[in-house]
């Protein structure tokens, strides 16, 4: 069963965090934040707090409360989740003179997120779009996985059994995501670790795309060589049930 607080965490620290990737890789998004020096604090009653900062042409989602130019309040996780779904508006507490950024560039950034995370068959025929869709989906899924593993009741059970260490997920000659596990707590960072305890790899971006979109099951992928695993497999065994929960939150 989906927990709205966990969904709020996924929306904040996985979906909105995707703006970091957009700022770096999408010229349209980069143009929207060019020259912007501001930050948006999200305060969710009975839920998480995070701050999305735009500075020097980059975006960064930070956990907790930070000094911000705009403060948005949500009276519940459900309220925040509705805002992400485009069905509700936040309550601005600070930064009334900067609300134009929210209604203008920020909304356009949100549209870019939607554009890359909700592909059409036609868009996927463009190799550049295909790459960005797959990479952004992968980052979003694994950042959400960490939130689900730390906060969803079933996710926590699986995370508690994950042995300590770094689980590296990667696309051969491509992006990497590291799941750091310590005493049942998960954290996710981008990049490649030099000494992971377990590795789950995709042969290419196409394999990753099909797995992330439910068009290739992992057993088939591993058996056919489109995916590979090595290292301390209990890390993967206990991550998989958490990964299975990701579509529940992000679909």
């Amino acid at each position, binding site marked *: 069963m989906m927990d709205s607080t966990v969904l709020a965490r996924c929306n904040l620290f996985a979906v909105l965090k995707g703006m970091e990737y957009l700022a770096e890789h999408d010229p349209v998004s980069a143009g929207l934040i060019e020259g912007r020096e501001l930050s948006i604090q999200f305060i969710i009653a009975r839920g998480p707090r995070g701050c999305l900062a735009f500075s020097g042409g980059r975006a960064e989602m930070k956990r907790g409360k930070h000094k911000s130019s705009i403060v948005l309040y949500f009276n519940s996780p459900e309220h925040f989740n509705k805002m992400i779904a485009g069905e509700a508006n936040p309550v601005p507490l600070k930064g009334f003179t900067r609300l134009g950024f929210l209604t203008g560039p920020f909304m356009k950034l949100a549209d870019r997120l939607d554009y890359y995370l909700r592909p059409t068959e036609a868009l996927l025929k463009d190799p550049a779009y295909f790459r960005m869709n797959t990479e952004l989906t992968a980052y979003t899924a694994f950042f959400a996985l960490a939130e689900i593993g730390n906060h969803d009741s*079933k996710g926590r*059970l699986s995370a508690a059994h994950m042995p300590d260490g770094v689980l590296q997920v990667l696309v051969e000659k491509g992006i990497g995501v590291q799941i750091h596990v310590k005493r049942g707590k998960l954290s996710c960072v981008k990049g490649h670790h030099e000494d992971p305890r377990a590795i789950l790899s995709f042969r290419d971006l196409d394999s990753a795309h099909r797995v992330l979109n439910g068009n290739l099951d992992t057993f088939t992928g591993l*058996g056919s*060589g489109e995916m*590979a695993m*090595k290292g*301390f497999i209990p890390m993967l065994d206990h991550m998989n049930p958490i990964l299975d929960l990701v579509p529940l939150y992000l679909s």
Partner: protein
Amino acid sequence: MTETKDTLNSYTKSMDLFQRALKVLPAGIPGHQGPVQSQFIPTTAYPLYADRVKDSYFWDLDGNKFIDYMCAYGPNVLGYNNDVVEAAAREQYEKGNCMALPGRKQVEFAELLVDTIEMADWAFFMKNGGDATGFARLIAHAATGREKVIMVEGGYHGVAPWTQSVTHAGITDGDVGNNLTVPWNDTAAVERLVKKYPRRIAAFIATPYDHRVFADNVLPAEGYWQKIRKICDENGIVLIIDDVRCGFRLDLGGSARYFGFEPDLACYCKALANGYPVSAVVGKDSLKDAASKVFYTGSYWSSAAPMAAGVACINELKRLDGANLMIEKGKKLTEGLVKAAAAEDLTLKISGVPSMFYMRLINDDSLMMQQEFCAECARRGVFFTSHHNHFINCSLTDEDISQTIQVASEAFAVVAKNNPGRLNR
């Protein structure tokens, strides 16, 4: 002088069949024999299908021959296609196998098990190890009227919902709601649970020693089983030993005898009939009535040929003093493997009882070196797995052991070359 292969194995026919299988079978090869569950890392190093077997060997679809240390995950105890067992099974097949009534072999097999397994007063037959552990649990519930069962963390008792984690696909909270878990070798934890749930615990179930996967196997601490027996006696708890994997590889009288205690119920399967499908629960007289009352049956559970195979298998194991024979062979093999590793500045750690040893390289927290070692062995015709205990069978020869050590030496050399920073130097 042993000979090693000039070229490494390839598996074109196996992979072609697997591609067909992926279209019509979930996961291609379902269950523990699939390349994912078997930890075939990388998949390309391993065969996926066997074509035929004999003694300690199997041949894959591509014609590669392997010395097999998984023994079909245990059932091959005398040697594949053992002549005595095959003759007994064939004779019974010709008379009749699946019939409207059980054959006389059912009674003969039960008598033999009662004579062989020290604590057994009766026997009840089914097909798989999971059938046996499930039945034992039902008997405990029926006999005590209690709902909870204590299990050891990491213990494996089959795939029925109650044996799995709630995090596994398809398992609900209700399936595992009456399970209580304790760490292995921790009698104080058992006592705490007994105190916390007075008169609510039906059974304690565990394997004779901790032979979980991905970890060194751990024997019972001195006095562990005797203390568990005492706790169970004092609190009306049924003591169940899951001897499915260890059975007849430690002691022909049952692994409980090997460790010096008497359970109330014991579950057997793998080594019972040298590959023919039959499992058993044996128990004490005090639980015979409860066992009679539990309705538990299946279409093929009384099939006569596996019973005939079982009778022949147990008698052969007795004739050969099979358990001690396999322990001796396991010692010889593992001592050779340890020496071969040391020659390449690697340390191989062996744990568990030698007839079903677990091995891993040290300085290898991720098991990546162990996976590399097993893959190199598979490419050269020796079948190990990197995550599971291995199995010795009675037909393993000194020549097989020598050849295995030769192959292992070559594999360790590859591992050492690829991992210079993790050597003992």
